């Protein structure tokens, strides 16, 4: 009998045909794999958040294997000597065991915490990119709202995780959270006692926060992230204006193979950065905080950075107590305004911004092309104002550490924060607005007169003028060069940036190819026409 020859090269193809015969996936998969994504570094910031969320899920699952979410009192007998014999909750004891007695536990805990900080930081940076480039405009308002909600849900995830180890710092944070809830008029005391199962701290809060932290909030995050990505897919990514890029197309790379490979590589980079930080930088040394006791409050007790603006607003708030003489008298504590009302306003303003702007500009059109921040000075200035507001609050949240380490009076820091909160945002608005106008002006100058060459020519009558390299050929204007129209994209400002819109020199650190020869004649550098780009279509038409 003749032995059948096994053709290795044909195996994948055969298997694929087999799959397609049964599931008919070839047509939709082709559409998916040919989908085109525009390429710009700023479009990768959201991916940092996505990938750190993946790291959070991976490390978090590891931590749940060893963490015991209970407040039953135990006496620690693990390997960290300075706490041996100390009574503490089972949650704290198991967190210590995770750090000192579980192999690889400490690096996993630290990676989880760094990944959480990175998740929130990347969300904020991504959000700034979307805001300043106008990517939130119609038709993408829904995705902007989902993104803002992702920040606030991530905020909750971070806070519940911060509370779980039941160390001195997390207990202090919980106490503040209970005070914030208590400050809400009318419902405060009911809300607090229903969450804590009675008076603070009770015996149930860690178990409740645990299930919120490992099931409810991650479930919500996964759902929101899926819708967020699904909408990016459906509505297609925005792109910068440029040659061949219009409001009605997408120019970029196909999903497979290049874009997928790049994203895979970027995931490895994000994972690597988180792993390095988890291994090199100590974060949240719970063994130094000790078990939570109501009477232990350390100096420099701060929340993680994304909550610090609330701490700052509390520190800056004057002690204005409102007494309402109804019945036995009713008090609205000053804590209510900076910790409940302020975040409420911030959530409302941030989620509603796309509609506010569209209403203000009476703009009903769909926008798929991004705007450079300088071209929309009002929006850029409003964004700078918001950033200034947030930064003043965040710095005030750490004002005791700043006061101590830079030897400034703490009282002076508080007053600087109060004044800064009122002065810095309008100042940021004004300065940013002027900067944008100045940058626009310079772009127009270059388009009209060309790039400065650095060559000074002396005229027969003794005057000196600088020679400009026009960006376009002379077209019969009196002064010898024509005026170009601004295309909404980078205008070359230096001689060696001319032609920068063409393909970049290949190679990392060292160019693989030999750079173009330097022009011989100074005054007349050979500016060649940029090579034609060919448009890569996704095979589907755009509405």
């Amino acid at each position: 009998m003749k032995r059948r020859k096994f053709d290795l090269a044909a195996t994948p193809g055969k298997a694929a045909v087999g799959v397609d015969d049964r599931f008919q996936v070839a047509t939709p998969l082709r559409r998916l794999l040919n989908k085109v994504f525009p390429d710009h570094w700023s479009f990768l910031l959201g991916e940092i958040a996505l990938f750190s969320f993946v790291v959070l899920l991976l490390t978090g699952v590891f931590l749940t294997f060893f963490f015991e979410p209970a407040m039953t009192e135990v006496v620690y007998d693990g390997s960290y000597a300075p706490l041996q014999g100390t009574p503490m909750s089972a949650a704290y004891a198991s967190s210590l065991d995770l750090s000192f007695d579980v192999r690889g536990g400490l690096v996993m805990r630290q990676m989880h915490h760094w990944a959480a900080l990175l998740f929130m930081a990347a969300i904020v940076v991504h959000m700034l990119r979307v805001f300043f480039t106008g990517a939130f405009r119609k038709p993408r308002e829904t995705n902007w709202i989902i993104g803002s909600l992702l920040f606030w849900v991530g905020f909750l995830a971070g806070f519940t995780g911060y509370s779980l180890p039941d160390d001195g710092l997390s207990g202090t944070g919980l106490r503040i959270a209970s005070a914030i809830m208590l400050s809400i008029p009318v419902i405060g005391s009911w809300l607090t006692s229903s969450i804590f199962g009675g008076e603070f701290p009770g015996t149930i809060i860690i178990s409740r926060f645990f299930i919120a932290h490992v099931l409810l909030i991650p479930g919500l995050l996964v759902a929101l992230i899926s819708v967020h990505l699904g909408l990016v897919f459906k509505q297609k990514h925005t792109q910068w204006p440029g040659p061949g890029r219009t409001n009605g197309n997408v120019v970029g790379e196909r999903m497979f193979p290049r874009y997928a490979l790049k994203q895979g590589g970027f995931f490895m980079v994000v994972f690597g950065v988180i792993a390095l930080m988890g291994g090199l930088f100590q974060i949240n040394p719970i063994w130094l905080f000790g078990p939570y006791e109501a009477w232990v409050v350390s100096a420099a007790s701060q929340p993680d950075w994304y909550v610090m603006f609330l701490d700052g607003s509390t520190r800056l708030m004057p002690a204005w107590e409102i007494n309402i003489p109804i019945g036995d008298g009713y008090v609205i504590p000053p804590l209510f305004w900076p910790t409940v009302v302020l975040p409420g306003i911030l959530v409302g303003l941030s989620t509603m911004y796309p509609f506010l702007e569209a209403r203000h500009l009476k703009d009903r059109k769909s926008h798929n092309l991004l705007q450079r921040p300088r071209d929309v000075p009002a929006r850029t200035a409003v964004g700078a104002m918001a950033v200034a507001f947030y930064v003043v609050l965040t710095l005030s949240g750490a004002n005791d550490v700043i006061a101590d380490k830079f030897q400034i009076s703490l009282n002076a820091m508080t007053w600087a924060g109060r004044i800064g909160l009122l002065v810095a945002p309008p100042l940021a608005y004004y300065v940013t607005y002027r900067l944008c106008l100045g940058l626009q002006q310079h772009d127009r100058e270059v388009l009209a007169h060309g790039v400065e060459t650095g060559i000074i020519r002396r005229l027969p009558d003794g005057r000196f003028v600088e020679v400009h390299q026009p960006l376009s050929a002379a077209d019969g204007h009196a002064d010898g060069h024509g005026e170009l129209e601004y295309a909404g994209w980078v205008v070359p400002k230096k001689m060696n940036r001319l032609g920068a819109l063409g393909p970049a020199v290949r190679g990392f650190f060292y160019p693989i190819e030999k750079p173009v020869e330097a022009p011989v004649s100074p005054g007349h550098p050979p500016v060649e026409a940029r090579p034609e780009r060919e448009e890569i279509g996704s095979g589907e038409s755009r509405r």
Partner: protein
Amino acid sequence: MTSDNDRRRGLLARLRGRPAARSRGRRRLGAAVRLFAALMLAGGAYTVFAPGAQAQDNPPLTGAAAEGKALFDVSCVTCHGRNAQGVEGRGPSLVGVGAASVEFQVSSGRMPMARQEAQAHRKPPLFTDEQTRQLAQYIQELGGGPIVPEGDNLHEDANIAAGGELFRINCSQCHAFGGGGGALSSGKFAPSLRPASDRQIYAAMLSGPQNMPVFGDNQLRPEQKADIIAYIQETLKHDQDPGGFNLGRYGPSTEGLAIFLIGIVALVFASLWIAGKS
């Protein structure tokens, strides 16, 4: 007759024999002598029993204290005044602060102070150990006060875990969980415990320097003080930071700074690199 007279006179008089008729001058002299003796007796008894201020006008200083006084009169008298009684608006009286206070302030370089400000800063000490002891002895002999026990190692056989608990309850509010110090109001601060020696920490707890409260022996027993010192010296200073570089142990504020300066910056460069490869 004689016997009658005898009976009427007292026994002593009878023993002395017949009274001689004394002259008026002699009687006056005797009264003066008796008055003088009574005054001497009362004055002497007062001098012996009453610890009045006059008694310390010129206290017999021991040798070390005399040396200390000489140093004091050169370096400290400007602010703390003659006989360490203080100068209004410049420096407090040192009578009764004890050797512990002098040892803390002088050995940590806080005294002599560089200038009048919210709080004295730690700096290299100006006096040698020997001179510090002499100054301390002088102040001790002026008015008494708390004294740090002998020896450089004050935390032998102490319980570190108990010390940790006491540290977190009593010290961490101001000196922070890692002993790095923290801010107080109006430019005052709790200093870092990192450079402090056993004796300085003990002296600080006993004397309550600057804005620190006094932790007397009835609040923290000497063995509890030893426990706290053991926790600071053995754990806070020698902790190997198992998680890596500790970012100054300033809590979440430097961690937030690190994620932006290291994490976000590194990844933005990575995204520039990846997006540049097209």
